């Protein structure tokens, strides 16, 4: 059960940082319409750093554990640092490479956080292609487009 390694299941059973924040600097929701998985992220930003992160969501073990792992990683990180995270970073956090069938599950959390930060900067939301940075992932590009 590679993808369902104990780390992922542990975060799925006991998600970290899963709570809404009372007064976030920015809030953003993303839904994977292909499967209905949904995540809402609350960020408190201070001096360009992510001071506090909270979230709520529903979905499969990979999307929910991914959000749990990412929220631990992001706490105290600079906004620039968070914006520079890639699919490879998510794979590293999850501890297993995520194949084409499930990469949207694995990246829903990162996609939500990146668009929360863009909203905070007053920029337009980015699409999946940009989050996944498909230039280096030709097989994925063929699936997503």
């Amino acid at each position: 059960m590679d993808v369902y390694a104990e780390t992922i299941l542990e975060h799925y059973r006991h998600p970290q940082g899963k709570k809404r924040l009372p007064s976030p600097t920015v809030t953003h929701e993303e839904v994977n319409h292909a499967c209905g998985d949904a995540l809402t992220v609350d960020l408190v930003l201070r001096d360009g750093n992510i001071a506090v992160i909270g979230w709520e969501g529903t979905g499969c073990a990979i999307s929910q554990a991914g959000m749990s792992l990412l929220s631990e990683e992001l706490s105290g990180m600079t906004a620039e640092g968070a914006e520079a995270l890639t699919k490879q970073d998510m794979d590293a956090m999850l501890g297993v490479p995520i194949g084409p069938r499930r990469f949207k599950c694995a990246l829903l959390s990162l996609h939500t956080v990146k668009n929360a930060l863009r909203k905070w900067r007053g920029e337009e939301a980015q699409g999946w292609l940009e989050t996944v940075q498909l230039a280096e992932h030709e097989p994925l590009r063929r699936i997503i487009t």
Partner: protein
Amino acid sequence: MPFHLPAIRRQFPILSRQIDGHPLIYLDNAATAQKPEAVLEAMDRFYRHSNGNAHRGMHVLAEEATIAFEDARNAVARFIGARRPEEIIFTKSCTEAINLVARSFGESLKSGDAIALSILEHHSNVVPWLQLKERDGIEILWLDCDAEGRLHPEELRHILDRGRVKLLSITAQSNVLGIRPPLAEMIALAHAAGMLVMVDAAQAIAHGHIDVRALDCDFLAFSGHKLYGPTGIGVLYGKQKLLEAMPPFLGGGMMIHEVHRDHFTAADIPAKFEAGTQPIAEAVGLHAAINWFTQFDWNDIVNHEQELLTHAASALNDIPGLHVLGPLSIRHLPLAIRHSASGCLSFTIDGVHPHDLTEILGRKGICLRAGHHCTQPLHKRLGIAASTRLSVGIYNTKEEIDATVEAIGEIVSHFTR
């Protein structure tokens, strides 16, 4: 033909496939069914021996293709009890058949007219009508179900008070709950109120005998691939007088009588609705599927599949945290309720998402479907985001159900321990 399961299974080459050393257990028949040798051979033979374009030439191959295509139409007409083969229109899918009615019959609707749908419908029997709503201001009225997902004819009476309903479009079998609405009763009620009735038989067609004359439905749609035939072919049945009065759907070759620089006249049915080169090899495959399937007795097929489903339901009900949806959730099933569902059942599990479950099952060679199954209104009605569906076919065995239930039990305990 006697119903001998090992002999039936031997006729499906894909069933001998292994996935990572596990024998394939295919329980996703509601998505698409596997194909017997007879279908594969018939299509192969057509392409190797008789391939030409139907109704478009004087040479031998064109003639053979034409005969094969029209033979298929006759076979479909006999299979569902249509009065005449002209009442059978070939399309590329069940979805296209429903769209044909929505667009063509829909031309006669005016703003404020209403279409009635049941909450059980697949998106393919929802979205074409929503498109009419957006374009022409057609109202959509919904028939609700009870807590088990069953439809009751009285709902139809409530609908009548709420709008000028011109057509009821309804599934013959839910692709999630397996529920078969009391169609004959509902059709009689609808007709008495001046409505037409379209039946979406995509699921029902392979799980119980359908006779369009006995049902007295006005339109009925299904696809070839859920009936052990090929993809790429669908069927629309319509009563002759209705089809004759409807304008063409797609424009192109063969659907015309005369074409001038400034106007055209449409061909007679069925050609009026069959623009462009038709799925000829697929029609041949569908004909072979019907011939293959009808060699068995309906009672044998229905009894076999009902046994599999009720066995699956009672075994699944024993897994802690697993909730079977619909009428099969009831433990000691009265026969009448048990038989209001067929073909498939769906369930949720506390703490295990359907996508995780089906991905892990898939690696063990067990194919089940997860998600909303193109029925978002029904899932919202049931208060769930997604479910897992187990759907049976003629070739499935009790041993396959047992192996699947055992695997699900292992996954549940791994996830929730």
